[in-house]
């Protein structure tokens, strides 16, 4: 995982013809993590999507070294399949083996649910499944958009441990959250600081 990096310089984002934020600089090298904070609609998710290459930045440059794994509010798992089947589709796309998937399932305490159809999982269980996909992917750069949503305290602790292990292994974590997350984040970006004046 060494050599992973995510570098943002002077990022601006326009949504619906309106400048949302600008001037966001962030450099994360191997083992680095950052937390995006701010109220709803301030552009946390948009910045995440820019980092993932899903949204074009209005200004600035994004430099990514290493594969990206993203967990956002949408599950992207096939509802009718069992949890293992649905996750192993993504594991195969990511080139991860079953052992990696099993490790990720146990890391998120999903082993007892592995044969359940995805559609009957609860909100928190679905969130854990999305996080398990990120863990199993083996990608060095994790983008977690509101990873704590719907998680109970025990699951939050599991998430914190996984993030810690990932960082210790030279990974990168960028998380956006409006609630406190049990992760060490030397860098905290308050997105309101970057809000464009005309957006206020």
């Amino acid at each position, binding site marked *: 995982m060494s050599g992973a990096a995510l570098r943002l310089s002077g990022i601006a984002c326009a949504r619906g013809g309106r400048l949302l934020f600008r001037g966001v600089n962030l450099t994360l090298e191997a083992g680095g993590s950052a937390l995006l904070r701010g109220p709803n609609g301030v552009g946390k998710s948009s910045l995440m*999507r820019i980092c*993932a*290459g*899903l*949204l*074009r930045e209005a200004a600035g440059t994004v430099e990514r070294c290493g*594969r*990206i*794994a*993203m967990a*956002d*509010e*949408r*599950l*992207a*798992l*096939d509802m*009718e399949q069992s949890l293992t089947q649905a996750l192993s*589709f*993504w594991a*195969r*796309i*990511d080139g991860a083996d079953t052992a990696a998937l099993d490790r990720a399932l146990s890391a998120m305490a999903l082993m007892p649910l592995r044969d359940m159809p995805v559609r009957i999982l609860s909100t928190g269980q679905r969130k854990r499944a999305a996080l398990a996909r990120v863990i199993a992917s083996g990608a060095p750069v994790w*983008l977690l958009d509101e990873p704590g949503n719907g998680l109970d305290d025990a699951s939050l602790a599991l998430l914190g441990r996984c993030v810690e292990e990932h960082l210790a292994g030279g990974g990168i974590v960028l998380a956006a959250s409006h609630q406190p997350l049990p992760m060490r984040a030397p860098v905290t970006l308050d997105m309101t600081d970057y809000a464009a004046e005309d957006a206020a």
Partner: protein
Amino acid sequence: MRVLALLVARDLRQAWQSAGLWLPVAFLLLVASLYPFAVGPDAALLRRSGGGMLWIAALLASLLPVDRLVAPDRDAGVLDQLAARGIGEEMVVLARLVAHWLGFGPALMLATLPAAALLKLDGATVGLLELGLLIGTPALAALGLLVATLTAGLRSTGALAGLLALPLAVPLLIFGAGTLGDGSGAAFKFLGAASLLLVAITPFAGGAAIRAGRE
């Protein structure tokens, strides 16, 4: 190639689960069994008009699954997850095109056999019809998929999909039905050309539509 195969396999399984595979077949057979009731049991008339009727049925059958081709995966975030992995939208659309054709092309060609019997078509016409469908169904699949990528994210896409697809489908219908009465083979060449064009542009146009839909 590995990713392409994985995507095709997944898309085929999704089509199977959502009953998208037998729906066009049932539609074609339904039209073929209702048509003689509407125009009367005159075997000569049925034989003369039945082939063209089956082309119309095939065209409309290909539009049936349009609303489940792209929109559900877009809404579920599957397309974004694939893009975040650096898999091009063109590859995603190409895989879907292959899966969509595999799902409905051969099935439609099989269903044409009993349908042709209902319409009292002779053996030579059935042969021409099957050959024409072999060339034309990839274009029908491409057209349906292209419209699905363009309308994903919009509401009440059914009617809009029809409106968008029909102008592009008219050449296919003219050349496709034209192969039945044309002895020179020119209609087959035109059908092949139209089919190649649609199949070739769909991954690029569809990929661009998906990307534009993210903004």
